[in-house]
């Protein structure tokens, strides 16, 4: 079977570290919000160790978020100006979404050919970037370093930060579940999408789902 390279080793590594840190953050963070249901986690690890793991995983997620920001900016500036099209919303995404919904509800026989990411994958990317990369990291840093936070806000406001951190963790897990759903249960990749582990996808599957992107990389438009 012929394969097409979709992710570099660097992207696979960053994804793996980010995913692992997010899972660890759920595992060590939710017992704080739901101590009755998840009492067994601090009981097994001990509260100080659980919080230490939470902070190390949090710092790792901040590193991953910064890597992705710097990586995308540098790529867009130095490597190819079209790079941001893979992550920013475009007019084609809106058209694709309309055709996709029409195809799903049998109003059309034409399934859209996507770019490197479909409209739904971009939405999924934004939920993770905004909730985990921005909100959770920022509020996490403020809670980790309250004496630093109190230089910019009154102390009681830290309670509001706690509330935001805990509430958006729930939204975060919903976003990650959507990510699992899109990645592994998509008809082209069901039951397991191996591309984020191997960096490659079968050419036949790329042709079906990411036709526009495949045309570009094969036509030499994008390196």
């Amino acid at each position, binding site marked *: 079977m012929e394969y097409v390279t979709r992710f570099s080793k*660097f992207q696979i590594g960053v994804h793996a570290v980010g995913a692992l840190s997010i899972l660890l953050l759920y595992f060590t963070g939710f017992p704080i919000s739901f101590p009755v249901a998840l009492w067994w986690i601090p009981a097994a690890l001990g509260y100080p160790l659980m919080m230490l793991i939470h902070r190390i995983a949090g*710092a790792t997620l901040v590193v991953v978020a910064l890597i992705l920001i710097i990586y995308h900016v540098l790529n867009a500036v*130095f490597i190819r100006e079209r790079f941001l099209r893979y992550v920013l919303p475009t007019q084609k995404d809106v058209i694709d979404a309309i055709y996709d919904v029409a195809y799903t509800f049998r109003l059309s026989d034409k399934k859209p050919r996507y770019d490197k990411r479909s409209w739904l994958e971009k939405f999924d990317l934004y939920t993770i970037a905004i909730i985990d990369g921005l909100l959770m990291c920022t509020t996490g840093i403020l809670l980790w*370093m309250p004496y630093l936070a109190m230089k910019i806000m009154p102390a009681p406001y830290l309670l509001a930060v706690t509330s935001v951190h805990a509430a958006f963790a729930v939204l975060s897990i919903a976003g990650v579940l959507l990510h699992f759903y899109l990645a592994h249960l998509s008809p082209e990749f069901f039951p397991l999408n191996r591309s984020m582990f191997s960096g490659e996808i079968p050419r036949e599957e790329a042709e079906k789902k990411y036709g526009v992107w495949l045309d570009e990389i094969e036509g030499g438009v994008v390196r």
Partner: protein
Amino acid sequence: MSVKKVQVEAVAAVAAIAIVVVLVAYVAGNYVPNQLPRIPDQDAYTHQMALIGDIDLMVKIIVGIGVFAILLLEIYEHIAITECFRRKKVEE
């Protein structure tokens, strides 16, 4: 000289780690334990607590709407998958 992708990847990784190390070093250097301020003004405190209650409610509403939106997308994706398999079966 053109910039290679591997160079961009290396710079991104090193810069991100450096930023976090600097942040942690700064915070560690400025650590002042047991300096929580006393409540100087009861009225201000009451006002702040009321505001926190409002923020808490707002956050819960936003999260509720967000979870509902994500649930709708998951239902949509489920329908799309079912439809795709149906069409595949018809083709076969």
